[in-house]
């Protein structure tokens, strides 16, 4: 008899609905379970990773970043689209399960009956409609508007558009089938004179109902049964297909976000569970083969949704270096799928570098953290890059230009190979030494505050001026401070981030001892890299502050007062150093200092604060000779020009190196200049006699910077 029945009671081509749908359910669930089990195989063989602490903080992350979709609106259009789809999916979860179960039984989910059930139906009618429309928009966006960040340069593989459109289409089909099922059911019931479900006005089911209302009951019934079957098949196909591509994030993202790294600026240990003292017993360092990744990092590979935001913000990618975080992940994921196929045995692992990655790719990262800041799923990149570098270092595959610097760090404690006894030569500049004294601290000569200078400020002619400005500011605010002098070695910040853990630990142990012996109760530095190292990589040392935090505080306390800016035509833009901003969230202090200078005109670059664009990298990155189309610094300087600035203020000596070089390369000499926040503060501090200022000298000094 023609009519609308529950799918369980309907007969499809002589097969009873109950048996058909039982078969589909079983097949779908078994297939999905099998595929997921295969996908879990590499995770079982992976390295340990300790991610089980601080459950509340982790749940907080889930609430904010997963459920709250916190990062998504950073890209407005795609972000809102995703939030709509995500919300739709969340709302539709119950409906989907309800729909699946009625294939077997006359069954209404608990709570989905009565008034609430009706309300839920209305909401989900709209949800399905919204998701359906979003899919259409997304497909149009992919095919017609082609946002640049989805493009796949030839060196990174083939375009992913077909796959994306296929998936979007599949979801649209699912929504359409769901809606048609509801529409035909309602239309059938109306024709049969039964109480019909009131479909949400203007929703997709409602529209479809309108379209088929006058169709013969037989057609409506066929549509009803077919829609259900299509929905079933699409649902299970999608479920089993997801673990083969970017859609897997639907399942894995919740876990990825829960297990995400909680502290930024820190680097993972060589092996979780092995203390520094026992590192010598670890046979192999870092990631060489895929199984050397931790399970969380593998989970990251599965979770990537290929949204391209990481690469879109990656300065290395923008400069044309052979690196894009997005492809670092996609290549690893594809490799995992290939090594651990769904059918058949896992293949023997080969070294990743040389197989899917190139050495230049791994060395190209400045560890600026822009990718991690952007990723909606909190996927980690820096730890993976560092682990891959540890693997390269362990095998001796280190570019010659870096080897020189590393050897000098080992023998002399600084990458330049300069003598230790010249570490404090920056103090000896004639006009400075005449007016200021900077003591060298030791157990016999302690002070409250230790100024940790670090290598570049100690040895680079140009950057020494930052050291002197810092010392003058500390003197001005009456700080009892000193330096370690020859006893200070490089903080090792980049040594660790370039994968030379053993050398880093030696530098750290040396400095820790010297810092402890100095008797200081707090540490100040003007170098964000040293700041981050002392804060996150060292232990058992006094608390550390960046000089911008000190200046900001003393501006508030009134100890520091600034005079009016000299040149009213100067327009300043503050460039956030990665290791001050993104890695340590010091965004406001430097800006407050600038805004406290009377008459100073300040503009923001488009990329500012947590979207700051790396100048080219610090520490050992200065020694690396990247393969790139243009310099990151040049891109950055152009951004400042675009913002209408003619003075770039930085708070990092490495930013200064890169930006001053970039100004010359960009041909903006004379039109644009760079100054460190300490130099600017120093020159603006009201009571410092003009004769002792290096304000004028700062610009002359640029001439002496040898070509790097």
């Amino acid at each position, binding site marked *: 008899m023609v009519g609308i029945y529950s799918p369980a009671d309907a007969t499809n081509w002589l097969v009873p609905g109950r048996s058909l749908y039982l078969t589909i359910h079983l097949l779908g669930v078994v297939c999905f379970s099998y595929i997921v089990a295969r996908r879990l195989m590499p995770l079982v063989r992976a390295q340990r990773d300790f991610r089980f602490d601080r459950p509340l903080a982790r749940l907080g992350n889930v609430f904010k970043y997963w459920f709250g979709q916190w990062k998504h609106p950073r890209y407005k259009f795609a972000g809102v689209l995703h939030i709509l789809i995500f919300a739709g999916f969340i709302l539709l979860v119950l409906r989907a399960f309800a729909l699946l179960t009625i294939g077997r039984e006359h069954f209404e989910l608990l709570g989905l009956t009565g008034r609430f059930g009706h309300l839920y139906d209305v909401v989900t009618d709209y949800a399905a409609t919204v998701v359906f429309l979003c899919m259409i928009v997304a497909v149009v966006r992919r095919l017609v508007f082609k946002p640049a960040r989805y493009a796949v340069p030839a060196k990174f593989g083939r375009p992913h558009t077909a796959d994306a459109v296929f998936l979007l289409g599949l979801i649209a089909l699912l929504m359409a089938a769901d809606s048609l099922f509801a529409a035909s059911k309602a239309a059938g019931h109306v024709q049969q004179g039964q109480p019909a479900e009131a479909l949400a006005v203007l929703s997709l089911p409602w529209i479809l109902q309108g379209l088929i209302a006058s169709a013969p009951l037989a057609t409506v019934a066929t549509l009803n049964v077919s829609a259900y079957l299509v929905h079933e098949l699409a649902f299970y196909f999608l479920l089993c297909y997801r673990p083969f591509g970017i859609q897997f994030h639907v399942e894995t993202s919740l876990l990825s976000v829960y297990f995400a790294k909680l502290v930024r600026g820190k680097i993972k240990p060589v092996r979780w569970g092995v203390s520094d003292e026992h590192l010598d017993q670890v046979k192999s360092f870092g990631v060489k083969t895929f199984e050397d990744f931790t399970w969380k990092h593998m989970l990251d590979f599965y979770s990537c949704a290929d949204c391209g935001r990481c690469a879109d913000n990656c300065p290395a990618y923008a400069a044309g270096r052979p690196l894009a975080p997005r492809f670092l992940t996609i290549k690893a994921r594809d490799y995992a799928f290939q090594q651990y196929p769904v059918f058949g045995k896992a293949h023997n692992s080969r070294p990743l570098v040389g197989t899917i990655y190139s050495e230049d790719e791994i060395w190209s990262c400045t560890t600026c953290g822009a990718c991690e800041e952007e990723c909606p799923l909190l996927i980690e990149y820096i730890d993976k890059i560092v682990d891959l570098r540890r693997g390269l*270092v362990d095998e*001796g595959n280190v570019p*010659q230009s870096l*080897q020189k610097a590393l050897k000098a760090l080992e*023998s002399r404690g600084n990458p330049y190979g300069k*003598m230790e006894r010249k570490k404090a030569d920056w103090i000896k500049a004639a006009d400075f030494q005449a007016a200021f004294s900077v003591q060298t601290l030791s157990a016999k000569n302690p002070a409250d505050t230790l100024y940790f200078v670090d290598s570049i400020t100690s040895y680079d002619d140009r950057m020494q001026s930052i050291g002197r400005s810092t010392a003058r500011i500390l003197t001005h605010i009456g700080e009892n401070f000193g330096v370690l002098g020859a006893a200070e070695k490089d903080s090792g910040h980049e040594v660790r981030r370039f994968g030379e*853990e053993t050398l880093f630990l030696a530098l750290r142990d040396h400095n820790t001892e010297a810092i402890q012996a100095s008797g200081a109760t707090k540490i100040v530095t003007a170098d964000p890299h040293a700041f981050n190292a002392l804060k996150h990589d060292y232990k058992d040392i006094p608390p550390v502050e960046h000089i911008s935090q000190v200046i900001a505080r003393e501006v508030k306390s009134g100890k520091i007062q600034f005079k009016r800016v000299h040149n009213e035509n100067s327009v300043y833009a503050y460039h956030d150093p990665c290791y001050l901003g993104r890695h340590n969230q010091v965004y406001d202090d430097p800006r407050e200092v600038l805004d406290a200078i009377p008459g100073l005109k300040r503009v923001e670059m488009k990329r500012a604060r947590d979207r700051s664009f790396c100048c080219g990298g610090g520490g050992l990155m200065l020694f690396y000779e990247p393969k790139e189309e243009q310099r990151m610094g040049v891109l950055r300087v152009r951004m400042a020009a675009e913002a209408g600035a003619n003075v770039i203020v930085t708070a990092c000596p490495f930013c200064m190196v890169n930006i001053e070089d970039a100004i010359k390369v960009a041909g903006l000499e004379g039109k644009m200049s760079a100054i460190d926040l300490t130099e600017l503060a120093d020159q603006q501090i009201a009571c410092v006699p003009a004769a002792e200022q290096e304000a004028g000298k700062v610009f002359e000094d640029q001439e002496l910077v040898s070509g790097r």
Partner: protein
Amino acid sequence: MEILVCARRVPDTSENEIEVNAAGNDIERDDLVYSINEPDNYAVEEALQIRDRVGGNVTVVTVGGEDDEEILRRELAMGANQAALVSDDAFAGSDGRGIATVLKAFVQKGKYDLILTGVQADDGAAQVGGMLAAMLDYPFASLVNSIAVEDGKLKVSREIEGGNREVNEIDLPCVLSIQTGINEPRYVGMRGIRQVASVPIPTVGATDLGVDANAVGEAGAKVRRIDYFVPAAGKGAEILRGSREENADKVLELVAAKGGLK
């Protein structure tokens, strides 16, 4: 292939000004750090690469004192199979010939198909390899910047003028002095060195080698360094101190006067 690499520990002077001590008989060494002579490091890397291609062993040897063991340790960490420290009071003050004499005795205690040295060390003499080859009656090539192993012989190219390369065929056994840039030496860090900390490095003396103490050391030296000095700076250029405009005019005038404007 059995390969011997002769290496030397030298002060690392690239970034530091060298000062002559007050007596003028040495440089100030207190603040210097030492490392393996750079071309020697390339020689070791080349030896390792040849070994990895055709099999065999790489031995690294240095003539020196206890302190010089550190470079052998580093080269072991790089992958050398064994190392030997040739050390004896009798060797002190040897000139190039003396060192070559000692090395010759060492070579004759073993059996090597290929002996590599760096092209030159801190004294800039570029002599020991050629001398050693002549003493052993082995063929020799200097400034080698590529090596291909063929049957019983090598095909090597040498760096000659104008950036050109001279290709030679050379019979084994032979001695080659290796130019920097022939390869990209692998990195060795503290970790690598620690891993070979317990590998024994034998010390070999004059009697072990049967070297006549009079033929080496200060006694046997035909060439002796008398002193170190820093030559007085030349008169230097006449620095033009005018404005940029004036300087350009002056340069133009000078170029024309010297026949540079045809």
